């Protein structure tokens, strides 16, 4: 019966090779193909899914209004399983097999860096909705982002701390997270002269118990604690801090933004965080987004969702501006984005392909946010 296995293997091999015969297959020209690479599964699936939902809402709205240049936009989404190597494969597939004209991605800076290399190599414009590491747009002139960078945001937090008169601050950062690392660096740069960092403690993303470190922080007697981390950890940390009678204000960055933080209610009172937008922002763009998102997905959007939404709209607008669905033209159009009325703020892409947006500092009280400060880019 050996011949049966042999034939089976041979058939498998042939089938495999056959499916590779796909160089430059003709694409239907009645739609515009955009690629998205996101972490739909894996460790950070929650961010990827949020961002994806926001993006799809934007594209649906654009298509419902007639599409761009008379054609609907189709988004091909590839999952990179929260892995940087997979991100490269996903982007390669989008470019080489699906022949997309532009790419949106990713939430995490590491994966944006990975995918960005490929996009730059093949000259396909890439727009990151929420990667904040400054290095991302330095990969090349085809890489853009519509959010601000870690150093800007860290600086915003520092300026706010100075304004509030907090002279002694403890930094409690997430050692396994590059977002936290970037924000800390930005914060230190802005705060170093105005006040003193009396201690720096760390934890690992996903840890549950922080009381050991919080006890140490309490002994250091700070005026406030800088907590540049993601919302899941933030809520637990503040809760445990209050349990330990550490009642000073905690403050952080846009990673705090999530319905979970608001749902935590009174325990978060007296805390602040920098963000791209505020739900209290009366601008219709914000309010209509929130309504539309809730209508479609039956839940409240978080920061990733709103940035994904804006990324989609900015991209659609850039294609329209470009006049043709062609990567170079789209790239140039993206570079010229000016005062775009995004839900997450007015977006202008600067010469370093980062977004110049004002940052809001939001205060938490009773499960609601209010605008404590608005800080504009210098």
């Amino acid at each position, binding site marked *: 019966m050996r011949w049966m296995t042999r034939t089976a293997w041979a058939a498998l091999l042939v089938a495999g090779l056959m499916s590779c015969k796909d160089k430059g297959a003709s694409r239907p020209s009645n739609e515009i193909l955009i690629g998205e690479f996101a972490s739909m599964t894996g*460790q950070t699936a929650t961010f990827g899914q949020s961002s994806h939902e926001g993006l799809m809402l934007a594209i649906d709205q654009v298509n419902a209004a007639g599409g761009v240049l008379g054609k609907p936009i189709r988004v091909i989404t590839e999952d990179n399983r929260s892995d940087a190597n997979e991100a490269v494969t996903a982007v390669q597939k989008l470019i080489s097999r699906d022949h997309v004209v532009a790419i949106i991605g990713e939430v995490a800076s590491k994966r944006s860096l990975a995918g960005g290399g490929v996009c730059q190599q093949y000259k396909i414009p890439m727009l990151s909705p929420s990667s904040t590491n400054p290095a991302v747009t330095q990969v090349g002139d085809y890489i853009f982002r519509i959010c601000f960078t870690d150093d800007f945001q860290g600086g915003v937090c520092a300026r706010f701390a100075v304004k509030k008169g907090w002279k002694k601050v403890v930094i409690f950062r997430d050692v396994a997270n590059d977002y936290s690392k970037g924000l800390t660096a930005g914060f230190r740069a802005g705060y170093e002269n105005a006040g003193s960092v009396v201690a720096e403690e760390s934890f690992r993303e996903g840890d*549950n*118990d922080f009381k*050991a470190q919080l006890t140490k922080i309490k002994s250091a007697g700070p005026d406030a604690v800088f907590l540049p981390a993601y919302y899941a950890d933030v809520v637990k940390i503040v809760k445990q801090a209050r349990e330990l009678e550490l009642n000073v204000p905690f403050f952080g960055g846009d990673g705090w933004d999530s319905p979970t933080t608001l749902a935590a209610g009174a325990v978060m009172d007296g805390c602040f965080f920098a963000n791209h937008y505020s739900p209290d922002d009366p601008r219709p763009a914000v309010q209509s987004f929130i309504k539309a998102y809730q209508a479609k997905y039956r839940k409240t959007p978080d920061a990733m969702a709103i940035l994904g939404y804006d990324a989609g709209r900015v991209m659609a607008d850039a294609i329209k501006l470009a006049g043709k669905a062609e990567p170079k033209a789209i790239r140039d159009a993206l570079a010229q984005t000016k005062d775009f009325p995004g839900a997450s703020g007015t977006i202008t892409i600067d010469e370093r392909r980062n977004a110049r947006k004002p940052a809001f500092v939001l205060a938490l009280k009773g499960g609601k946010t209010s605008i404590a400060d608005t800080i504009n880019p210098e």
Partner: protein
Amino acid sequence: MHDLIQQLIIGLSIGATYALIALGYTMVYGVLRLINFAHGEVYMMGAVVGFHVTNLIARWRLPLWVSLPFVFVTAMVACAALGFLIEFLAYRPLRNRPRLVVLITAIGVSLLLQNLAQMWFIFGPTPQAFPPLIPQYSKTFGTPPNTITISNLDVLSFGLSVGLMAALAWVVLRTRTGLALRAVSYRFDTSSLMGINTNRTISFTFMLGSALAAVAGVVDAIRYDVKPLMGLMPGLKAFVAAVLGGIGSIPGALVGGMLMGLVETLVKGYLSSAYADAVAFVVLIVILLVKPSGLFGRYVPEKL
């Protein structure tokens, strides 16, 4: 000094959870010589079940003395059933196969549960806070800034752990099923010759261990939050705890769990929190090199 006492309290509170999970590992290893890799996921499922149940009964506004035990018991029953299923479907067919095969299967079950939990119809990938069930308050002693704080959840966790262990000890030492459990741990083949239904005993062991893990899961869910990957690290640390205490030994699991909690907290508090997770594995390697039978285990020489 007060800091040290605070850290000790924290460590014991965490350790209590590890102890509960470690008990499951140690009992299953005792009867089957199997590291049930999936045990951490059973802990997680306990939290998930507790989460859903609490949400379900929220509208009935039951008094605390009804809702709290109800949530715990439901989680325990659900996880006992899950433990039974895992043993019956995945481990029993491999009863006589080489250990490595069973180990790989256990890893498979663990992965399966982790990924099923991420499906939207079970829980989803997003961490969620536990719905309000127990009002949390803490009591502070001492004068600021030298204060020591204990929260009611610390007390609950510790109390449940010790209490359940005592109950477990009673079951194992004073009941016939417990006797069967000990017999099967001691000598598998002979115990079946003695008329013990080994299959049933093993199922019972799994169910018992899983129920304990469920309790730990619910407690941690209330204290922290619920997320599908929450079982991975506590599972591994509890395993180290079981080894530390002497795998197969029930008091060993308790002591091991407490010790692991203390070590982890003290490392976080006095050394560096960055390495706290790695410390668990360092402890494991040290124990396995220095005293592989653990604190309370007996050294059983390998007979040929």
